């Protein structure tokens, strides 16, 4: 039997993925371990190897469309296996496969591979798609009892399998079919507190507000969808509140200059280069990690049953990349030196831009830092990235007039805003954390210890 090539699950909560690029085409001979295609998950790109050697056939996984995890995207036929083209010939397939072992080499009499597992050709459930017809015995029985055709039920299970929940939903929808549809009017103001949560406008409602031809539609890629989903989830389930204060940067900038000047020179392929080049952001990461260790109650994650108190500070750093953003994590940033953090950050950021981060490099973490200072933003509030309980939004360092002991002086000042999950970090605790951060930024020698 030919080997099924499926869209694998490469990311923890991945439900669908997109093939960004095939490296082998229909009919190509592939060796086990050859790169078959590149898969774009929610946040990274990953190369998938051929699970077997042979000829690549029935490549149904199209590039740049969402494919459920586990869905077959192609088949690999071993050299001695007879290839049967899919769908167009399915209708002509005899009800009974050829008896005996020898299969004549005409494709007409050979069942396509998708017809083999669990689908009885006599039940008339084979259609053009190689996945239609998968249903659990329970789903089939429930559909039979409800007088539904299983072919009319859309499957939500692995590889499009119809499961109990799908039939139950179909039965419920059938029962509700005569009920009036909710009117698609402009929502009126909620009459009472018990009204359902407001729903965002539908696609049609949005498009109706613009003249046809006045826009271009760009379908969302997975990253955009993930960002949208996670942000709505974060903003609607986490009670955010915000604390802002100003940090003077002059001491930090001086120390940074001094440290960078002291960097030893290393030989690389591109000639000599300093062993590190610290950025302000590297020092912000370190300060945030040390502040969390100093105020350990704030180094937490909320779960309904318990407070998750972390023993290390794993600092996520928002990195803007084409088409979105991603938050790679500096693990144990509290224990790492500035030069280690700096070099690790450069590596993570460059791989983030080429979408080559592994899931474990951007999942989890105990806090995050988002810096828009390089764009001149003075101050902003960031959205918490669960499971974190805090995120620090960092503005630009700029010369400002500050009043000291009744006199106006010039200082380089950076405003930072801490967003906290109020379930996990209360106001005073957040203030304590931000105070510890400010002390480290303004007395940066503390970060060298």
């Amino acid at each position, binding site marked *: 039997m030919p080997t099924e090539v499926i869209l694998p699950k490469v990311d923890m909560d991945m439900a669908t993925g997109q093939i960004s690029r095939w490296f082998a085409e229909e009919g190509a001979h592939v060796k086990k371990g050859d790169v078959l295609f590149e898969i774009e998950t929610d946040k990274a790109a990953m190369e998938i190897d051929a699970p077997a050697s042979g000829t690549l056939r029935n490549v149904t996984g199209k590039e740049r469309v969402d494919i459920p995890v586990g869905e077959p995207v192609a088949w690999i036929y071993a050299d001695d296996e007879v290839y049967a083209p899919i769908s167009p010939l399915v209708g002509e397939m005899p009800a009974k496969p050829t008896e005996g072992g020898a299969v004549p080499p005409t494709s007409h009499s050979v069942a396509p591979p998708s017809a083999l597992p669990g689908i009885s050709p006599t039940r008339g459930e084979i259609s053009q798609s190689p996945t239609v017809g998968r249903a659990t*015995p*329970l789903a089939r*029985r429930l559909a039979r009892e409800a007088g539904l055709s299983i072919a009319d039920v859309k499957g*939500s299970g*692995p590889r499009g399998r119809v499961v109990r929940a799908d039939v139950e939903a179909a039965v419920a929808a059938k029962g509700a079919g005569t009920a009036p549809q909710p009117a698609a009017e402009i929502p009126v103001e909620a009459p009472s507190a018990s009204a359902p949560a407001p729903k965002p406008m539908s696609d049609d409602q949005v498009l109706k507000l613009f003249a046809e031809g006045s826009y271009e539609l760009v379908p969302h890629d997975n990253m955009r969808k993930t960002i949208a989903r996670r942000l709505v989830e974060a903003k609607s389930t986490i009670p955010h509140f915000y604390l802002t204060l100003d940090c003077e940067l002059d001491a930090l900038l001086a120390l940074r200059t001094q440290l960078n000047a002291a960097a030893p020179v290393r030989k690389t392929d591109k000639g000599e280069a300093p062993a590190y080049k610290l950025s302000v952001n590297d020092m912000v990461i370190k300060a945030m990690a040390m502040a969390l260790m100093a105020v350990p109650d704030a180094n937490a994650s909320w779960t309904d*049953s318990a407070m998750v108190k972390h023993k290390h500070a794993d600092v996520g750093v928002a990195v803007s990349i084409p088409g979105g953003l991603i938050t790679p994590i500096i693990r144990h940033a509290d224990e790492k030196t500035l030069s280690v953090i700096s070099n690790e950050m450069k590596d993570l950021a460059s791989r983030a831009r080429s979408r080559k981060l592994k899931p474990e490099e951007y999942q989890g973490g105990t806090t995050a830092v988002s810096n828009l200072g390089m764009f001149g933003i003075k101050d902003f509030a960031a959205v918490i990235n669960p499971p974190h309980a805090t995120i620090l939004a960092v503005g630009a360092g700029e010369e400002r007039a500050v009043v000291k002991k009744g006199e106006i002086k010039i200082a380089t000042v950076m405003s930072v805003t801490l967003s906290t999950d109020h379930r996990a970090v209360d106001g005073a605790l957040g203030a304590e954390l931000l105070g510890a951060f400010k002390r480290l930024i303004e007395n940066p020698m503390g970060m060298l210890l």
Partner: protein
Amino acid sequence: MDAAVRELSYAQAIQEAMAIAMDMDERVFLMGEDIGVYGGAFQVTGDLVERYGTDRVIDTPISELGGAGVAVGAAVTGMRPIFEFQFSDFATLGMEQIVNQAAKMRFMLGGEVSVPVVMRFPAGSGTGAAAQHSQSLEAWLGHVPGLKVIQPATPHDAKGMLLAAVADPDPVMIFEHKLLYKMKGHVPEGHYTVPIGKAEIRREGRDLTIVATSIMVQKALDAAAVLEGEGIDIEVVDLRTIRPLDRQAVIDSVKKTSRLLCVYEAVKTLGIGAEVSALVAESEAFDYLDAPIVRLGGAETPIPYNPDLEKATVPQVPDIIAAARDLVKGVR
């Protein structure tokens, strides 16, 4: 101590059962290699030789075929022997007596004799005893009509099922996982029996049935406890007996949960999980399945000596958690 909460180890429970059996019936005696003065390779017989003497706690020569033959012969002629194979792996050497003699005599002699022999088999991996002393061979004997094959998973059942085995008119093979010997649990005092051929629901649940045997029962319960935190409600069926199999208990549970995961330590292929899967597929429970049946069994390899590899060879709690989660969440 309050009898209701008295705890014994699995090994102590078996020893107590053997002592009670010998107290109650003078036909009962023990045989095996090193079970006398040495107390048994796993100290299950312990000091029984001091309490019952060398006539009733008999050290045999290192010949499993000879020992098993004597036990079968004694059973046929009216005694109630309990024979210990030092390691279940050595069943290979006693196979003739078990399979061709003990299992067949009642049938071949028109029911005129019975063979009330009990054979005990310390089984399973996890002790660093390598390929020839770590196997789980219960399915071999489970394939033979005429035998009864049990795998008690708790100290309570070890005692109760051994006493049921001694009272049984037919040959009963007991597979005792070596890692269970130290497991402690409630064991009532005195004589009681746990029926052979009856499975036990160790934990009730809605979302998934795990059918487990022997040490995998506890591992399944540990996995279920973790998954409870994720809102996954697991039913754990302790098979307890693999011949005769309690088919109805499995069918009823699967009809309730619609999903089945079989977990056993023996090599996956042709193991008890294959039988349980097939019996569900053949039964009325088929129309209740909402996911493929999944088996977790031992790897297709002799048990390695290296401790890490040994552990990796058989299902562990994280494997069960992952498989159960995938089944319930519809990943498989």
